[in-house]
């Protein structure tokens, strides 16, 4: 189950908010950060790899 870009970006924003709150323990903060770093990578990969595709609807539908 791969997440959409939108879902990943939303999770990433949430991670930044949690780190901003600053009430997570150091261990939690590090593991949150690692999750965030992975999401950043996935977002960048997804945007980098995207290619446009053109399809056409038949008129006899």
């Amino acid at each position, binding site marked *: 189950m791969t997440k*959409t*870009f*939108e879902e990943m*970006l939303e999770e*990433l*924003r949430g*991670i*930044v908010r949690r*780190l*901003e709150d*600053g009430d*997570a323990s*150091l261990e939690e*903060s*590090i593991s949150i*950060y690692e999750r*965030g*770093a992975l999401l*950043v990578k996935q*977002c*960048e990969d997804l*945007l980098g790899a*995207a*290619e*446009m*595709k*053109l*399809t*056409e*609807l038949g*008129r006899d*539908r």
Partner: protein
Amino acid sequence: MMLSGPAADPDQPGALIFGVSEVSTLICDLLDDARLQEIWVRGEVTNYKNHSSGHHYFSLSEGGERSSALINCVMWRSCAAELRFAPRNGMGVLAFGTLEVYEPHGRYQLIVRRLLPAGAGERHLMVERWKRELDAEGLFSPERKRPLPAFPRRVGVVTSRTGAALQDILSVISRRYPVEVVLSPAAVQGEGAHADIAEAIRRIDGLVDVIIVGRGGGSFEDLFPFNHPDVVRAVAACRTPVISAVGHEVDTALCDFAADLPAPTPSAAAERAVPDRVDLLREVAGHRERMRALLSHRIAAAENEVDDLRARMHPRRLERRVHERMQRLVEHADLLRRAALARVQRERAALAEARAELLGRDPLAALDRGYCIVGSGRRVMRSARDLHPGDRVMLLMKDGRCRAVIEEVTYDEDV
């Protein structure tokens, strides 16, 4: 047309071959006809342009939904200065002028010298009427507008397969945020275009996340199908959000009013349909930097905490306490020493006093009480043993001296 016979073969004797200018001249001669000089023409103004040079360019058209005839017109600056009204597209007018051929472009045009309004044009009136009706149906109401999806996965496009609009849209989308584009092709001008467009909209509705309906720029007649109630109703009925993009910035069609978002051009519609990958990459990079900063901040806070704890258990603290105690000890010792010193001094003083008292006593005081001192030479005789009969002595008394001679000496044996 018959192309056989001697005239169709340029090699045949007698075949006439014209130069372009000869044909052009011939056309000029033909059009130099009294029936085309100084005439009044009734028509509807379209493609009106008030050029910066001061010359006015427009067309006069005639016909129902689709113009059946069109004449290009020009009104030179000197004549345009005489205009008593501002010509607008769709306005019915009477134009007075002469037909001329502009040979360099091979086109003819009506050189208009006078222009009079003859009531609003029929097609514009029709659009105005449709607009009122559709508005009354509530199809243009702002409450109907829906937000566009931020990240569409599939973008639907209703336009001509061969038009510039499709190419513009594809180029913008591939540059900004490549997604799947689904084309629902439709003829966008000509007879029946409105029905075709409406059908293409219905066909793609629900299959994509957002729909762009439109076409590139054109004349009022070219854009006319996008005013048609069939198209407007199809747009309004869509479950999928619709972006309308008809013509250029200045053009509007009724379909714009029914869409969730009117865009000035097909390219602009594509820009509104998808986010920009560059912005998204920038945002993601911003999150990365922010996360890094926050984590190092968090680590620094933890380090501070450790430092604080270390400081609180540090030997220096103990040392300070020892120093405190020592200080107190020294103070006490000092007090003690001073107390002892004071006592010694006190006793020393008492002793001195006693001594002074002793010293103060007069050794001759005993003489007052009746004793005398026996001296011999410079010595004080203390013992009878030091005296012998016949010794001369001096008796020192309270108030004088006496010479005496010792007659007899006896000893107290036990002394």
